[in-house]
């Protein structure tokens, strides 16, 4: 296994600060609208806690944060909180050789096909690695 390499993903126009490191920047008014989490989001939350917990010890929570920080500004800004964590879980389980990229891609297609067959609209988009 190769150790993941360290990268910095600086925010454009902000003199080299990393994309997630936003203290002091200005993103406009705070949207205080609240909503319940979707079921898939609650599951992401649950999997995250279980995987970083002592019983499973798949990876440290710090590794999850690092994975998210490595997405770069554009992806960071345009994805929602649980989209970030879902992608991080996927990337980390592959990095830790728990699952393979190939089997995840294959399963994603099976999941799409299954829901399409059940009459649901399903996005064809992938999630960047």
């Amino acid at each position, binding site marked *: 296994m190769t*150790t*993941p390499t*360290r*990268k*910095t993903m600086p925010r454009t126009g902000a003199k*080299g*600060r*990393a994309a997630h*490191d936003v*203290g*002091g920047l200005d993103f406009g008014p705070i949207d205080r609208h609240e909503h319940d989490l979707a079921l898939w989001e609650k599951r992401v939350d649950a999997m995250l806690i279980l995987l970083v917990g002592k019983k499973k010890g798949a*990876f*440290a929570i*710090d*590794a999850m*944060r*690092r994975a998210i*920080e490595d997405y770069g500004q554009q992806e960071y800004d345009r994805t929602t909180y649980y989209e970030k964590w879902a992608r991080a879980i996927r990337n980390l389980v592959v990095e*830790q050789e728990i699952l393979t990229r190939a089997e995840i891609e294959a399963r994603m297609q099976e999941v799409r096909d299954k829901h399409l067959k059940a009459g649901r609209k399903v996005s064809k988009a992938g999630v960047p690695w």
Partner: protein
Amino acid sequence: MTITAKPPKPRFKTGDTVHIGDRKAVGHCRTPWYLRGKTGVVASIQGTYHDPERLAYHKPGLPSQVLYKVRFLQSEIWPKYKGPATDHLEADIYEYWLEPATEERRP
């Protein structure tokens, strides 16, 4: 040669004036950009923890590192801070991001 265990002994104590390192981080770092190069005062010692900058890369992050709660004057962090001079900000900073400072400052 005698080898003795040396658990991390805090380099700083409450009330010490400290400078935050002004270097760039490579990879995971929990010292925010807006505090780099700033001067603060140790408000408390928060304990010792495995190093997050290494945990992030699947290393155990040993030896454990001392964590400090550092208090800053807002007017020092932000040149154009709009609030009163008595407003402060605190952050939890690891020892290896701190340097001793010579000038005294009240917390």
